[in-house]
């Protein structure tokens, strides 16, 4: 019953530091690397990775403003028009573009893999990277598409009816990853009738986890 904190602030910081080292190791340095965070929390994580990379790699620090952006995938999702309604977020591509670069996509929670599929689709409209890699803070399993992460902060075995929520200081006032048991209202404001739909949308449900739950009513029905 209730919620369980599985990663605390220090765990998140350590995981990001390790991911930063892994990214540099896999790429043999910082050459041609570009980080694209998937809004909202993936974008925050990308900014944090950027700060870690600047500390440990002089080449990254040299032109880091050319290397970090955000990639909104809303328009490329496969569940648009199913009565959910999603506000798009900002896409900012570094001025040097992504052609021929090694793009590292950064997201918070990897679950069904549908967000990442949408991100790969979105990249096509922007350019042709030499390679695309995926870094996530939490991999909770239950993939529905043949997608895997190259860099994972924490593998977290979960039941599919649990929620995994990442909270970050920048967006939520605290740093933690929590598992919420089924039946626990995490976003009570979501259920208030009469609240404007988009305000509700923006406040709640920005993680991979809640998005995925909204997209899979048939599975929830089956489990219940």
């Amino acid at each position, binding site marked *: 019953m209730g919620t369980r904190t599985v990663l605390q602030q220090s765990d998140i910081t350590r995981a990001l530091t390790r991911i930063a080292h892994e990214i540099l190791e896999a790429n043999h340095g910082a050459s041609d690397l570009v980080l694209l965070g998937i809004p909202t929390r993936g974008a925050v994580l990308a900014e944090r990775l950027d700060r870690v990379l600047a500390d440990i790699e002089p080449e990254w620090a040299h032109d880091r403003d050319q290397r970090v952006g955000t990639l909104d995938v809303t*328009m*490329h999702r496969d569940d648009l*028009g199913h009565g959910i*309604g999603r*506000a798009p977020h*900002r896409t900012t591509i570094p001025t040097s573009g992504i052609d021929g670069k090694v793009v590292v996509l950064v997201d918070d929670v990897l679950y069904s893999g549908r967000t990442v599929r949408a991100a790969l689709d979105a990249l096509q*409209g922007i*350019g042709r990277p030499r390679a695309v890699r995926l870094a996530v803070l939490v991999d909770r399993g239950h993939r529905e598409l043949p997608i895997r992460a190259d860099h994972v902060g924490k593998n977290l075995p979960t039941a599919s009816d649990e929620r995994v929520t990442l909270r970050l200081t920048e967006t939520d006032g605290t740093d933690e990853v929590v598992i919420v048991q089924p039946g626990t209202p995490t976003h009570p404001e979501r259920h208030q009738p009469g609240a404007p739909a988009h305000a509700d949308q923006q406040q709640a449900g920005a993680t991979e986890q809640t998005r995925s739950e909204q997209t899979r009513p048939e599975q929830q029905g089956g489990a219940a």
Partner: protein
Amino acid sequence: MKHLLSTADLSRAEAVHVLDVAEEMAEVNTREVRKLPALRGKTVVNLFFEDSTRTRISFEAAAKRLSADVINFAAKGSSVSKGESLKDTVQTLGAMGIDGIVMRHHASGAPRVLAEADWIDVPVVNAGDGTHEHPTQALLDAFTMRRRLHGGASRGKGLDGVRVTIVGDVLHSRVARSNAWLLRTLGAEVTFAAPPTLLPAVDRPFGAAVHHDLDAALAEDPDVVMLLRIQQERMNDAFFPNPREYTRHFGLTAARAAALSERTLIMHPGPMNRGLEIAGVAADDPRSTVVEQVANGVSVRMAVLYLALTGEHEPKESVA
């Protein structure tokens, strides 16, 4: 937002939200590949009972950039000219399977009739109805002002304290009405400058202040001067003695444009009658946003179509 019929229906939060989504669409329009798959597999009908080139093309470009299929329906030369009713026309289209209607009609209120009747259950976007409203024009005007004033930092902002003077045929202008309501919702102050014959015969039309003297209105140093087109097709009465007299009293002449402040925006919804309501020099001035308005129109209409057709309304499944 299911339908977009009137800017009076929009709350401030809703209007700002549409403009914010339009910002994201504008970003896409700067890319090499200006295409999003958001409305793939959906069919949008441009149902135009009144001549229009720029609005129809703008809606068509917007729908196509979102990957929707577009059917253009012009009443001229269609079954409508044989006397088919709106209900039958729409039900015929509905039977073919469509997902949204963009409608322009010469009768004020026609889009609302369509939205509220049970002939067809799809989102309706008003692309201009009679002398009533033209909501996407008002949204693109507000979007253009917001971008000029705030640049890249315009997301989430309204138009608080912005002073807008709208000049010309307010009486027949759906652009003026939609703008007056939307701009006031966003916090701007609206003033009309027009001859009494071209203003509604009320004290403060649509909540706006009124000037019968353009020079007095411009002396108040507005942030935006918006010229309205003199619509010859609606001039079936003697509203002013002749075009030259109109230009002398209410046209943005080269001299009036030169006297405007450096930061005052010059706007016109198009198509312009150069030399009548706006001098060529003023239209081509760096302060003029006429070309930007057209570009922004596509972004704003993409946002409206996206929001209406992907539905921030009636969730089919309840969220667990």
